[in-house]
């Protein structure tokens, strides 16, 4: 049977073809405008799933990188503090070694002591470094100032230069009691009297007692921070990295006790300095300071050992931070590579190839114009033209 091709069918076919070409043209125009092949999940659900998956993983890696970047700033601040502490502790070591060689005068030793006391204060300041509202060496107790130095009780002994001596005793409440020892006899047959000035300014004078020549000091290096470390998530499967150095591990803590007695005949102060607790660099420096004060050579050598160990701890922490920063660099590089690969995958799935897209778009445009022209001509062909 001869197949008929009716006018309606031809018209319908042409219209549908034009609509189809127009649809393709519109889709290509949208792709060109957005520069994306897939603008809806229904364009290609499998590819869209891969795109969403790639986006999720990229976000995840970017999150880890952001965490590491933030942690890095903090670790670098710790690192800077450690560098400062290292310089100070090294200087203290030098000073300690000089003080311990026994060739310096009392004045020079006193200057060394002053310098050591300054270094103690500087190291304490480094230990109390606050970065953006966070105490860096307090562990998880970020709002708690990690170090405080407490003298308990604070006793000093001073040669007044006029043959008299004054011992000052400050109790825990800060009340000061002074004991002034004066020789009321002769140099050959001394008779020592002590005038006690109480905190309420009342005075009493009595015979000097042996205890008046003794001082006993206890200096506490107190760590108020926490041993809980702060951590940050830097990878999948609960991969975390410490972002805090525990202050007590680095600067130590403990008590330095000084017991000394002044001999009015020889005019020499002798005694010993002891430490209890974890010790550490600050306590060792305190010990050195006290040892210089009473010329306790054993304590000086012991303090120098402690400072050396403190320097080792600082170097160790420095290394740990370096390892952490290196790990960040390694991970960041790996994550950057992953992000690049995922971005490339996402791009290959999602992004339109402009060159081929423009070619396809132009082709589609020509096809659309041709279909208009063809339709117009085909609809015009009729046997009526020949009648």
């Amino acid at each position, binding site marked *: 049977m001869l197949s008929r091709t009716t006018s309606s069918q031809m018209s319908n076919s042409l219209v549908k073809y034009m609509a189809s070409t127009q649809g393709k043209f519109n889709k290509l125009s949208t792709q060109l405008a957005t520069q994306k092949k897939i603008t809806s999940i*229904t364009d290609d659900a499998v590819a869209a799933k891969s795109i969403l998956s790639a986006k999720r993983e990229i976000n995840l890696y970017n999150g880890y990188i952001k965490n590491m970047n933030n942690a890095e700033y903090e670790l670098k601040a710790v690192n800077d503090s450690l560098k400062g502490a290292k310089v100070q502790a090294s200087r203290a070591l030098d000073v300690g070694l000089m003080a311990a060689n026994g060739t310096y005068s009392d004045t020079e030793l006193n200057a060394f002591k002053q310098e050591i006391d300054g270094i103690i204060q500087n190291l304490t300041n480094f230990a109390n470094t606050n970065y953006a509202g966070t105490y860096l060496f307090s562990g998880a107790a970020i709002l708690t100032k990690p170090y405080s130095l407490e003298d308990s009780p604070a006793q000093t002994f001073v040669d007044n230069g006029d043959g008299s001596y004054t011992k000052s005793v400050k109790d825990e409440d800060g009340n000061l009691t002074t004991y002034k020892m004066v020789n009321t006899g002769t140099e050959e047959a001394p008779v020592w009297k002590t005038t006690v000035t109480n905190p309420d300014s009342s005075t009493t004078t009595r015979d000097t007692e042996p205890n008046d020549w003794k001082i006993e000091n206890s200096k506490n290096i107190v760590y108020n921070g926490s041993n809980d470390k702060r951590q940050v998530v830097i990878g999948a499967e609960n991969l975390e990295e410490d972002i805090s150095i525990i202050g007590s591990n680095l600067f130590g803590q403990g008590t330095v006790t000084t017991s000394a007695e002044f001999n009015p005949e020889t005019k020499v102060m002798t005694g010993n300095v002891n430490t209890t607790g974890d010790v550490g660099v600050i306590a060792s420096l305190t010990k050195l300071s006290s040892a210089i004060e009473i010329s306790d050579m054993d304590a000086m050598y012991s303090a120098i050992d402690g400072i050396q160990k403190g320097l080792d701890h600082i170097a160790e922490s420095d290394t740990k931070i370096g390892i952490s920063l290196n790990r960040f660099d390694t991970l960041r590089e790996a994550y950057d590579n992953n992000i690049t690969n995922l971005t490339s995958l996402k791009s290959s799935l999602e992004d339109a190839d402009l060159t081929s897209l423009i070619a396809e778009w132009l082709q589609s445009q020509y096809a659309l114009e041709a279909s208009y022209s063809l339709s117009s001509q085909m609809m015009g062909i009729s046997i009526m033209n020949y009648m």
Partner: protein
Amino acid sequence: MSINSALTMAVNALQVNQTAISIVENNVANMNTEGYSKKRVNLGTRCIDGAETTDVYSIASHNAGVQITSISRYADEFLRSYLRKEQSGLSFFSTESEIANHIVTILDEMSGTGANSLAISLDEFYSAAANLQQNPTDVTARTDYIEKANNFTILLNSKYRDLNSYRTSLVGDGTEASMQASKLADNVNKANALLEDLAVINKRIISSGTLNSAGNNLYDQRDAILSQLASQINIETSISENGVASVSLDGLDLVKHTTVVGKLTMTAHYNTADDVRVTIGLEDQYGVQVQTDINDRIQGGSVGGILKMGGPSGVNLTVQNSVDMLDDLAAGFAEVINGIQTQGWIEQPDGTYIPDPNATEFAMCIGKDSEGNTILASPLEKIFVSSDEHSVINAGNISVNSKLRTNTSGISAALVTASSSDFTNTVEIDGQTGIQYTLTDESERTLVGNGKAMGVVLNTRNSTQNVRLKNLSPEAFLMSGISAIGVQAESINNQDEAQASKVESIETQLLNETGVDLNEEMMDMVKYQQAYQASARIFNACCDILNVLINLGA
């Protein structure tokens, strides 16, 4: 043969050809009319008495020229019936496709902005959690965390609302009023109107003959109605010899001869366990309900598509499936995050929390003690609650606890290892209300830089132990849900395209068989015009002969 006979034959031929030309004219006029079938004049020898013989002279002397034996209509009932069935399928898939695409548009996960993408909103939440992990006491980090959580809930609420109102626009919300305003009601009413129209056309077909053009036009109208009806519901059609169409739906009669015996009815169901909001039934011509639920039998047409996509959750994609996916995401995410926020604490009927004797890890927020020190404190509130604070959390009602938005120190960023005996509730926590615990150990309670709870939050990006989230991370669950919807929507679109091609092919074939070809009509017109001219000449010749004879007589 007499001159009169010849004259009569010529007149008759003129009339026949004139009718034939008018049929051609009608064909040309309707060549673009949808559903129009080409008509054709069938001519036959006009016989009078005595013509039935083999004698040629007798035939010539007794035949009286030409006559129209019938006006036939180009039709292929088999093809037309096949087309209707496939049109029903196309309408079903087109409706499904339209709805599926709308669902995808609402979920809109490819656009890539935090304002409309749940995935991006979740990523922003986790970013804020990472920031809070590193800065647990920072007010800005806490505010950012809670506000990002709030943004996520607002987005969930918005998508839930859009999907739900879309389903309501399709099948109503279970109430009579919304059902009557739904798209389903429009389609059902249209189907019923078409059934009535078909019954009327059937009546007119019976009362009209098929010899004339008007009768054939009724067939065209009948077919057009059947085609429209097939677009609404799946129907079976039987055409009787006299051209009357009877229609049934999966064996249930709808139109028999000239009567609508089965009219579609709708019943709304509110808040049922199976979540079917509308059932379609049938009532007979007397208004008696003969079927109460034929939803499963309606497998084609727009009505079938709406019923399926607007129906309850199932294996295949429906609007409700998408809502359920969002509900699972909201509920699962809230359970996970609230679980971390109150880890180690048991909620009491009055809403306060006491330490769990069996717990070893406790989530802690921050507060200030009577001396103004910032300390760790037990949580007082969950992060996510339902908007009315007592319903089960879903995507529509999930919201961030307003108390935490105004007092962000209540966010549990810390997680401490302890036992229930390590806590005391005698410490006053400044700025917060309710009974709160803190650690008895004074140094322990100052560990406010502990951001371990946020670390646990961040680890939920890898996986969770949540049934609602299928043990996936919230992001992976969302992606999996969105992908499943995308795959099903794409499959529906493909089915729709395939069905459209199939229907187009059948339509082309049908148009080729029944449509009007202008060239063919032109040829017929020339043919009938020439026959008309020839008949006119014979008529003139007969008139001339008659004139001569009359003049001879004179």
